[in-house]
């Protein structure tokens, strides 16, 4: 277990252009903002200007959603060069992406899909990671995704696959606590045990979000306040790991920005409790 003398994680929010002008008035409440590279690379002038102004006011960490690291083709180098430019603009300490795939050469579903959990897939991800590193020249952090079905050909568990890929790929983990809660509930495993069994120091950052229940399945929807169960799991995580930052993800159904700021306060409370 970690000592209370360990560095305190920074608490922040994910950048969402639709609500950010309102949130920007209360930047004093956050220590860090996570910006998705695609927001900048493909954003309009207003969004780019917001991100560039933000850079001057608060530290930024960089995230990605479209790299599709697990697609069985080499990553798009021209896109990676755009990402590299974005990373320089925001001065990001690392770049995080999902251990998943979203597209193939013929179609782009824009939905994070799980990978077949095999040795061959780990090899493939490592080859793709080498290309990503070559272009970005920055530490790579990989995130666990919510998954709703299992492939018949998988030969290892979710966490075996995740940790083996991270370890062999020399990557840290961005642990999405909500995804962990959802997966544990949907697939019937012990989330607390999974947190306890993570290798020491592997978690560099954490995501928390509010999910929903659809036809009896827990879904990572980012459309409501963070549940107490997710915050309790975050508290467990902080007993064993010391992420540098904890990011609240909220990008759907934002009726009132105060909901986001309330969640930031709740996360801070959890950090305080874990420190004491």
């Amino acid at each position, binding site marked *: 277990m970690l000592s209370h003398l360990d560095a305190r994680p920074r608490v922040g929010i994910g950048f969402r252009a639709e609500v950010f002008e309102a949130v920007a008035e209360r930047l004093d409440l956050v220590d860090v903002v996570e910006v998705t590279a695609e927001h900048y690379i493909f954003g309009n002038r207003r969004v780019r200007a917001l991100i560039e102004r933000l850079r001057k006011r608060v530290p930024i960490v960089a995230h990605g959603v479209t790299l599709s690291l697990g697609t069985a083709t080499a990553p798009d180098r021209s896109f990676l060069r755009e990402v590299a430019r974005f990373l320089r603009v925001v001065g990001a300490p690392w770049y995080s992406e999902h251990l998943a795939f979203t597209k193939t050469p013929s179609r782009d579903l824009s939905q994070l899909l799980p990978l077949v959990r095999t040795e061959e897939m780990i090899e493939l991800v490592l080859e793709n990671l080498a290309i990503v590193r070559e272009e970005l020249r920055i530490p790579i952090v990989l995130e666990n995704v919510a998954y709703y*079905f*299992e492939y018949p050909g998988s030969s290892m568990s979710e966490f075996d696959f995740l940790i083996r890929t991270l370890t062999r790929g020399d990557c840290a983990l961005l642990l999405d606590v909500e995804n962990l809660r959802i997966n544990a509930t949907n697939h019937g495993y012990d989330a607390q045990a999974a947190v306890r069994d993570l290798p020491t120091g592997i978690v560099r950052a954490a995501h928390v979000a509010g999910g929903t229940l659809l036809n009896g399945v827990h879904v990572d929807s980012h459309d409501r306040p963070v549940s107490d169960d997710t915050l309790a799991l975050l508290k467990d995580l902080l007993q064993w790991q010391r992420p540098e930052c904890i990011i609240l993800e909220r990008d759907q159904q934002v009726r009132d920005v105060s909901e986001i700021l309330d969640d930031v306060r709740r996360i801070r409370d959890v950090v305080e409790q874990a420190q004491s």
Partner: protein
Amino acid sequence: MRRDELLAFQEHVIHALSGENPIAGIDPGRLELVRDLAKAKRIAKVESVLPRTCNALGGEFSRLSNDFVQATPPRSFRSRADGLAFYRFLARRGAAPGILELAYCELAITALRTPSSREQPGFLSSVDGGTIAIRRAPGVRLRTCQYDVREFFEGDAIERRAAALPSPIHLAILADPPVSTPRITQLSPGLLDFLRGLRAWRVLSEVMDEEAMRLLHHLEQQGLLEIALARE
């Protein structure tokens, strides 16, 4: 599985999730859930690019968007790509002219808001050095409309209904200098023809007399034209 086998399997998964096919060994209910999540995301992208068009479609939008997702495979994560695909889908389905005109304007405005390499000073290789040359400002779109779709863009309200006009109007969708706010403005038939002929750089003296030159400066100030000295 080898890399090519993995790719074939991933293609199979993506096709199944963007269509209706099952995948052997995977719970059909869970596949349906992911299919619905992807579909909802795609429809949200269309709505983000074409909010006024979707609103103008009213109750029809739900049925049309479902048909769209079934008929048009997802090719890009970018919202603009789905907006453009939906516009083409509406055109194929014979949507009302006013709807297509509105969608065209919304797409043009989205394109104008997006930074692009076309904003760089144009390359004048086709024009002799030292000669004044003109072209239509990059990003300006021209459209002849049977409906005055400008009404849809007034204020913040998107719930508008434009009536068919007795005769068509010519519109330019452009970015107002210097802050690049998109704007839709009406053009005379003569000005429309003139601007249509200026897609590429042309030597000024070949297209204008002195009187027209004064008009040119006015148009440049409005953001409709670019005027530049060709490089030596």
